């Protein structure tokens, strides 16, 4: 165990643990937000693990999650549009807090990596993570107009 893995353990136990609870209970608007936040919390955790295990190749995992996590949320935003339009989620405070956590982790990992090719990859992951998280939240709270089908 080192500092990085301790931070990853905390992020998993507190953050992802809370999203598992959130996705299993409560109204639909809370569940979709919890699903979105689970990917945006697991992605920084994977970055921390990559640094903690001293394996730069593990960054590919975070890259893939930053890409596909928001895609998964878009699936729900698109196909549950009728249920969500009646009761849209409004949790921008939480979304921004998680995005800030992701940004902090990316900056910390970038500083540890130093200027190199790995830095470029980390910055791409960070941009995709934060952009994807915010866009997915936007899609959930009224990103689709909700035509009859389509």
């Amino acid at each position, binding site marked *: 165990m080192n500092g990085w893995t301790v931070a990853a353990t905390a992020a998993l136990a507190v953050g992802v643990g809370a999203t598992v609870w959130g996705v299993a209970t409560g109204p639909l608007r809370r569940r979709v937000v919890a699903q979105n936040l689970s990917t945006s919390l697991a992605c920084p955790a994977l970055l921390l693990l990559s640094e903690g*295990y001293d*394996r*730069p*190749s593990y960054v590919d995992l975070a890259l893939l999650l930053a890409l596909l996590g928001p895609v998964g949320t878009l699936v729900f935003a698109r196909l549950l549009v009728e249920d969500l339009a009646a009761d849209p989620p409004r949790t921008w405070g939480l979304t921004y807090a998680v995005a800030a956590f992701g940004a902090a982790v990316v900056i910390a990992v970038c500083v540890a990596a130093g200027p190199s090719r790995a830095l470029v990859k980390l910055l791409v992951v960070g941009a995709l993570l934060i952009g994807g998280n915010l866009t997915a939240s936007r899609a959930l709270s009224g990103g689709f107009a909700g035509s009859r089908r389509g």
Partner: protein
Amino acid sequence: MSVLPYLVAAWVFLVGCYGLATSRNLIHAVGCLAVCQSATYVLLLAVGYRDGATAPVFSDLKPGSRPVVDPVVQALALTDVVVGATVTAVLLALVLQISKLHGTVDPDELSELRG
């Protein structure tokens, strides 16, 4: 304490079986089957783990510098994750056919229909 991973795998498998048997919706049953599948991955990878080791991927690691975990079980689980998803697709296609033919996806109603 060292049997916790195996117990978790057994728990996930049993809970998936329980869901399959008590499900009132065939789509939900397919989801429970996916839970059962994931139990096998947990068990396989737990068998292959070695304390303090890292992945046997040598693109960023000097061979022999650190102990590595068992790659055989990883290869087994890796292919099965993707193939399992396509099998899930076949099952969902079957559910769609059932829903078209009988207008319901509740297994109990289906057995009543048969008489």
